[in-house]
């Protein structure tokens, strides 16, 4: 009984430390990791555009190698189209200015 109480306290401390670690991560290097992920996402978006741009009306003749890529690209096509064609304005950039007020 005593051990289980100690275990519960230990678990709570472990959980609190985990939450504190995640909050600290969110305040510090989450942005770096997110920035890198965004860069990768943008490059991938561009890659699909130059290989399968005809899907959204950009005239590209689908060569043999492009068609070989098709099975890998199919799962992302809907998200890619939405992401590329989504209307943007300057408020999309607001999140770039952190801690502005």
């Amino acid at each position: 009984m005593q051990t289980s109480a100690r275990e519960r306290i230990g678990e709570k401390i472990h959980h609190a430390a985990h939450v504190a670690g995640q909050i600290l991560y969110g305040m510090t290097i989450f942005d770096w990791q997110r920035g890198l992920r965004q860069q990768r996402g943008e490059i991938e978006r561009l890659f699909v555009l130059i290989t399968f741009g005809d899907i959204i009306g950009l005239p590209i003749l689908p060569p043999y190698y492009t068609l070989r890529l098709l099975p890998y690209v199919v799962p992302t096509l809907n998200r890619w189209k939405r992401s590329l064609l989504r209307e943007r304005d300057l408020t999309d950039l607001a999140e770039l200015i952190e801690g502005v007020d």
Partner: protein
Amino acid sequence: MNAILTLIIAAVGLGLGYFVYAKNINKNIVQPDDSKATPAKMYMDGVDFTPAGKNVLFGYQFKSIAALGPIGGPIVAAQWGWLPGLLWLILGTFFIGWVQDYASIIVPMRSEGDTFGALSYKLISPRARGILLVFIYLYLLLIMGAFGQVIGVLFMSKPAVPFGILSVILMGLLAGQMTYKWKQDIILTTVITVVVAFFGIWLGQTAFISNIFAGLNNALGEGGIKYFWPIVTMIICYLGAVLPIWRWAQPTNYVSFWVIALGMVGGVIGMLVWHPSFGDFPAFTGWTVAGLGPLWPILFVTIACGAISGWHSLVSSSGTARQIEKESDALPVGGGAMFMEMALGVISLLTATAATGGWEAFKEAFAGGKFGVFAVGLAAFLSHIGIPTSFGVPYGMVFLTIMGLTIMYLVVRFMRVASAELLGDAIPALKNIHIGAIVALILSLIVIWTGVWQTIWVLFGGANQMMASLALLIITVWLMRNGKQYAWTLWPCIFMFITTIAALLYTAFFTALPAALAGTNIAGNIIAFVVALILIVCALILGYDGLQALKRKGEVAAAAK
């Protein structure tokens, strides 16, 4: 009054606000459903939409919304005494602040991840988006003016400050190099850069280094200082605005975070150990403060962040809402971060009241440098955990300067992109990143050199609070459209709209215009008058469009019933 009692009152306000009012609205009105896919999951593209855990997002949201605003506002508002500021911080957050931040995540999250630009276009009127952009641009320009005056003119000219700033920036550059180019471990990078940055701050206040800058200031003279240090500040902003983000802005912000966070933690511990009383600091000094204006409406724009801030709605909609993993995370992330910011505002108020030790000491510190009160107060708190005041005060100034600088170069970055997007077709030169940044810097310098600080601060708050009104209006229309109870957002919206219009009218016609006509600071006061008029006209158009939108949605809702 006593610091601990103040913290207890704030904690009670926070507890009731979050655990009773906010949870009740979340459960009974918004009714989050974790089985629904959020935009972060539905549209995960690795660029804009990516899910993240609630604890991580809480940290991200808090860091994104908290900076100099919740520190500066309560210090300026302490001129009315400690009670009005404290009440507005607690009640403002309780009834308005968290409502806006939380709903600014919920509405975009249930509208396919649209930002407030797109939502204002769809829900209010096409021109509402244009008005929002005007608010944003003026808001950012006023930030550059308000922060630029404090940092460029007051803090950078203190001989103990520039070397510390240089150290933090150089360590930021090193952190970027170590992480991205040399592929070093982040913990090793953090330890080296933060320790050396602190050593640099300490070295900066030693007689050897500070005498060099004192000599430079003597050579420049009073007039030279006014122009030299703001230009140095703008050069730093220029570099931050045009260099790749990984090279300058991101790692510098990272090192700065540690410099600031360690100071805050130390300050709070020192305050708890010391638990000082307010001395003879009055609860209420009177209805009007010379140079600022009457309690209503000016207090409510003087303390923007810390109680309610429109900028949060933009950050919440364009950043956080697109990363929310589950609908139920919106309250702890949006609401929780806002209540934490209120706590930061209360701590800032305590640096002005309890830490200074009394009314005369506060007035003296405030006259010596506005936000400088915070540096003096922080040093007083830190002295109770063994950090000498001779280091604490310069450290507090470096703390505030770096906090402001890290924002300013991101603002210039945004302004450069904004001018290229909005005017790039008409003036192709603005598409050049250097020209775009220089134009933004020149505009900022004009505001810094000509502006009256307290007027700029009030206008900055006014632009911010107008964005808050717009955000609350969008949220109200959305709630009406979806047949949900909307009084909890409509009344805050009406209050913020009327109060902000009144504050802008007062600033334009009772502060800026009479001062300009009397021949005091003519250029700065005329600029302030024009900015206030633009904001008022935009607000009135917005009010009209908002009323039409509410009527339309009301009719649709009635027809549906």
